[in-house]
């Protein structure tokens, strides 16, 4: 071959070859870029899609754990029921969207067709309950109370009921042992929503479509532990859905059981007594409003003083938690949440707040001692205290002369605290406080007593209450001054005058504010559980606990028991000596003070009882009654709205609760056999080798068992009321007392600038 010079290619060809080369490389670059985009940038999304592609899940739902009382009695457990459910997807495939099938089904179940239709519609903003707020792809339960006969009818004629199934399922049950209700504490379940599934997707406890989720109370607080983990077997399938391997199998982990410190029997007694007290209050005449007391809501808390464990917590009005099981009906839902309802879902022990009335005086006493006043000093308990033309009366215009702070607690002398608070207010600089920090002993003490913040109880949505300190007044005034200044008139009606005053100086701490505050009236708000913490601390020597209801979480196999230990919140800002003095004074309330008329014949020697009564004024409503009590082991707080005085409304009820717990008989003797809980239940219920928890038998109605004793006790107390002289040595409160107490504040308002004329219309 001869050497052929490279004349074969002209520049044109050379340029074109380079163009081809560039083109080829850019094509490959495009592929590389696209590959990077798919695999690196969008890789995660495709990986997810791929796993959804070839993995089929078979879900084995976990059995939800039980909620048990302190002795192992189930307060919430599961039972097998015949559940009839409808598949929306199957119904929508039918010509009439399944109307005919649902109508037929309604006939079999004995329900109204309209009701069945409502149950299968989906919830949205415009659709009220009943409706389905779970996943539309999940079978919607229509009833969980089908009889075996109904279930058979449906299953035997499956072709007549396309999309309908009737199968036994485990459903939640609230067995109400011993007639205890515990509704607001237990809470309730409802189907998981799409949003929740999304949110929980990447957490360690994702939801399943079929899950029920705790919505309030313990069911919500301990939802994660109670729920357990559903067993999931993931099968790898091929493009035709054939199983080609088992990717992953996690067995179902049944939810743990929650042992609480609630004692079902005491709970029942507390509920019964609260209800009875409210009923009784409604028969009492309120002279101020000229009608009977409304007694429209109330709460009672029984707490172990030395641990903060809640033994009973009742809220009235209440409801049957079983209405939630298997989907709630429209009527029930309206009754529970409608505008006309009395909001029975609220747990008033932690979500009801009111001014504390005289139960607040323990805080004021501590504040006074902190401010430098001797506990055993002498302070004038006059019949009235006047500040700049404004007259603050003592209760019923009583006067006791110079008395100690302890005695002031005992007889609930308002004017002693008026004087101290007013003094401190002046020391802090009066209406225009000195530069630098005003001392504000009375407000600081309230914060130190844990007011104005949650107690940290293990229940959701606890409210904080309120301490109306300078900071709060400033922010409240800022928020409202525009409205006040608009509506306020100097010489207008009562409301207009108040608005006028508030507009001018609502941001300032006025003498009247602090004076009023010192006896627990005015803008202060507390919850029953906050009171329980304070009085529990007084009982145990000064330690405030975060109250707890959960006591232990026991795994389903019983092998893991994680105890929920009592947690200290802090100490009361009181010295040992002062505490002792207050303790004695509060015992005096029971023996010769404001609560004595309800506790005649109480075995005070054996079971020293301490109490403080309170009657809080609520503008436009009847007074709220408070009764805060404690023994060495327990504290019992009862409050009833619009029910008059603390001792009058709750005295017997609280006494009966103690009687049932300690076995105190009508004649004041103690029958230990009848005592429900003479000492706190320290040990956990016995856990069997198989993980089941033994529960003792519980009588049909512990409240009724004690009834005989109660009746006798009632007799004794009514005797006491009918024969007040001799049995009630100290200041007594009765219905007349209430009336007076209530007018006092109104009178102050009206009396401003007009002297102290009683204007009770």
């Amino acid at each position, binding site marked *: *071959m001869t*050497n*052929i010079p*490279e*004349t*074969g*290619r*002209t520049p*044109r*060809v*050379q340029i*074109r*070859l*380079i*163009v*081809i*080369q560039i*083109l*080829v*490389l850019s*094509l*490959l670059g*495009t*592929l*590389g870029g*696209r*590959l*990077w985009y*798919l*695999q*690196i940038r*969008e*890789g*995660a*999304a*495709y*990986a997810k*899609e*791929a*796993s959804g*592609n*070839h*993995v089929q899940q078979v879900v084995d739902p976990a059995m939800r754990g039980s909620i048990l009382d302190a002795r192992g009695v189930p307060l919430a457990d599961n039972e097998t029921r015949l559940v009839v459910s409808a598949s929306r997807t199957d119904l929508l495939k039918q010509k009439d969207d399944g109307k005919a099938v649902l109508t037929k089904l309604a006939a079999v179940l004995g329900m109204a067709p309209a009701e069945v239709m409502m149950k299968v519609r989906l919830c949205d903003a415009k659709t009220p309950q009943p409706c389905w707020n779970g996943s539309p792809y999940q079978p919607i339960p229509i009833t969980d109370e089908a009889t075996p006969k109904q279930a058979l009818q449906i299953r035997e004629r499956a072709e007549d009921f396309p999309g309908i199934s009737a199968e036994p399922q485990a459903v939640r049950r609230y067995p109400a042992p011993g007639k205890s209700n515990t509704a607001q504490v237990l809470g309730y379940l409802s189907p998981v929503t799409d949003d929740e599934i999304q949110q929980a997707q990447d957490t360690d406890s994702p939801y399943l479509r079929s899950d029920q989720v705790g919505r309030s109370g313990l069911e919500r607080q301990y939802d994660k532990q109670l729920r357990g983990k559903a067993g999931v077997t993931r099968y*790898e*399938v*091929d*493009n035709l859905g054939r199983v*080609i391997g088992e990717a992953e199998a996690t067995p179902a982990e049944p939810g743990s059981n929650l042992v609480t410190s609630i004692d079902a029997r005491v709970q029942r007694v507390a509920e019964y007594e609260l209800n009875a007290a409210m009923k009784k209050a409604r028969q009492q005449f309120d002279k101020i409003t000229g009608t009977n007391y409304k007694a429209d809501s109330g709460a009672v808390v029984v707490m172990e003083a030395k641990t903060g464990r809640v033994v009973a917590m009742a809220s009235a009005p209440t409801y049957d938690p079983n209405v939630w099981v298997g989907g709630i009906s429209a009527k029930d839902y309206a009754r529970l949440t409608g505008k006309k309802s009395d909001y029975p879902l609220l747990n008033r022990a932690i979500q009801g707040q009111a001014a504390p009335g005289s139960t607040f005086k323990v805080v004021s006493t501590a504040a006074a001692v902190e401010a430098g006043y001797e506990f055993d000093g002498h302070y004038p308990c006059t019949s009235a205290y006047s500040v700049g033309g404004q007259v603050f009366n003592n209760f019923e215009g009583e006067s006791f002369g110079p008395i100690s702070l302890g005695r002031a607690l005992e007889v609930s002398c308002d004017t002693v605290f008026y004087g101290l608070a007013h003094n401190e207010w002046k020391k802090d600089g009066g209406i225009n406080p000195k530069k630098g920090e005003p001392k504000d002993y009375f407000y600081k003490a309230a914060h130190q007593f844990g007011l104005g913040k949650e107690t940290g109880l293990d229940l959701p949505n606890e409210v904080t209450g309120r301490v109306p300190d300078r900071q709060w007044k400033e922010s409240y005034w800022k928020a409202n001054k525009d409205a006040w200044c608009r509506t306020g008139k100097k010489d207008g009606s009562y409301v207009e005058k108040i608005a006028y005053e508030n507009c001018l100086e609502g941001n300032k701490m006025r003498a009247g504010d602090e004076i009023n505050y010192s006896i627990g009236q005015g803008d202060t708000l507390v919850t029953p559980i906050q009171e329980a913490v304070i009085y529990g601390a007084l009982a145990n020597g000064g330690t405030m606990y975060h109250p707890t209801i959960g006591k232990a979480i026991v795994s389903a196999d019983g092998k893991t028991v994680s105890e929920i230990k009592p947690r200290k919140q802090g100490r009361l800002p009181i010295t040992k000596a002062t505490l002792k003095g207050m303790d004695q004074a509060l015992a005096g309330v029971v023996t010769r003070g404001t609560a004595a008329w309800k506790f005649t014949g109480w075995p005070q020697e054996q079971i020293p009882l301490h109490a403080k009564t309170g009657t809080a004024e609520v503008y436009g409503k009847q007074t709220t009654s408070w009764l805060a009590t404690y023994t060495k082991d327990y504290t019992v707080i009862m409050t009833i709205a619009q029910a008059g005085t603390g001792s009058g409304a709750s005295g017997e009820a609280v006494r009966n609760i103690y009687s049932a717990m300690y076995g105190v008989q009508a004649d004041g003797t103690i029958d230990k056999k009848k005592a429900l809980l003479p000492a706190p239940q320290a040990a956990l219920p016995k856990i069997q080798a198989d993980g089941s928890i033994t529960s003792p038998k519980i009588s049909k109605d512990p409240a009724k068992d004690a009834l005989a004793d109660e009746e006798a006790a009632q007799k004794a107390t009514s005797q006491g009321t009918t024969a007040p002289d001799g049995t009630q040595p100290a200041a007594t409160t009765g219905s007349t007392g209430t009336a007076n107490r209530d007018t006092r504040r109104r009178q102050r308002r009206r009396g401003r600038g007009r002297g102290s004329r009683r204007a009770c219309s």
Partner: protein
Amino acid sequence: MTGANSFSVSGYGPERAGWTRVFARDAMARRLDWPILLAAIALSFIGSLLVFSATRNRTEINQGDPYYFLIRHAMNTGIGLALMIGTIWLGHRTLRNAVPVLYGLSVLGILLVLTPLGSTVNGAHSWIVLGGGFSLQPSEFVKITIILGMAMLLSARVDAGDKPHPDHRTVLQALGLAAVPMLIVMLMPDLGSVMVMVIIVLGVLLASGASNRWIFGLLGAGALGAVAVWQLHILDDYQIARFAAFANPELDPAGVGYNTNQARIAIGSGGLTGAGLFHGSQTTGQFVPEQQTDFVFTVAGEELGFVGAGLIIVLLGVVLWRACRIARDSSDLYGTVVAAGIVAWFAFQSFENVGMTLGIMPVTGLPLPFVSYGGTSMFAVWVAVGLLQSIKVQRPLSA
């Protein structure tokens, strides 16, 4: 000039014996284009793994032998290598002389497909089943004969020194030569192969130095033709469906869009390093159809990840880059045009194949060179590699 033999002995220096001869500066082994050869072997090797992974569980097609496709792929590669050596030995210039015979044979082959002897696979009537699990796809060889034939015509007068560029008459003849087999393939119909041939014709014309008017004229005609094909409903329904699914993969995820969707999921789920060879769940679950042939790249994407799939693209890049160099360095226009034709062929077929699995090209039944399972296409690409090597080897040493 009768091939490589005359070049194995140098014209100077003493006779060298043994292996030193193989590595002598002017020896055959030294003059081969090793990057292309190694890259092509690597691609075939990776291909065999991917084909194995895609077929080892598919008892309905592998006759119960998990190694059925692996062995065949290896055999095909071996035969391909032999064909390459044969091609080098003959030399591309010898084959130029044989063009009339080759052209005639290949056209006869595709005509045979149209007779009852041919079989239909996936809508394309382009196969001749030989029995024993072997079948031939003559349109693959047509690609080679078109390249050789056109190159022969276009370069004849330029290489003879008569003209700087092929004249219009020559170009027309060359186009006519290509048009005949293309029409026949279109009748099969094997649209994918026709598209490859169109690109080959364009590449060949470009490299031959034909007038710009021809290039733009052809591009315009191609566009018009595409519109005409669309308007006159020449395409089969399945072909239209593929294009529609390309434009909108969500259109019919269970039907035509299924392939592209599943392919994209398979590749996307691979991530950086992939699920590991034989561990791709999309592959094991057979979610991607035709995975050992047209969609073989998805196995790489899923099981080897960006690293492995990227390596395939890089290896293809090596082959194409070297082929471009060979085209530019060829001693005559004939070699340049042949190499350019092969570049156009490989480049388009790779881009189309990988592009369709990545969702940036419509689905057509084209194999990925070296990697996809398939005898005829494997033979054809190795013959093409032989041609490239021959062009490289027969180029006189500079200086």
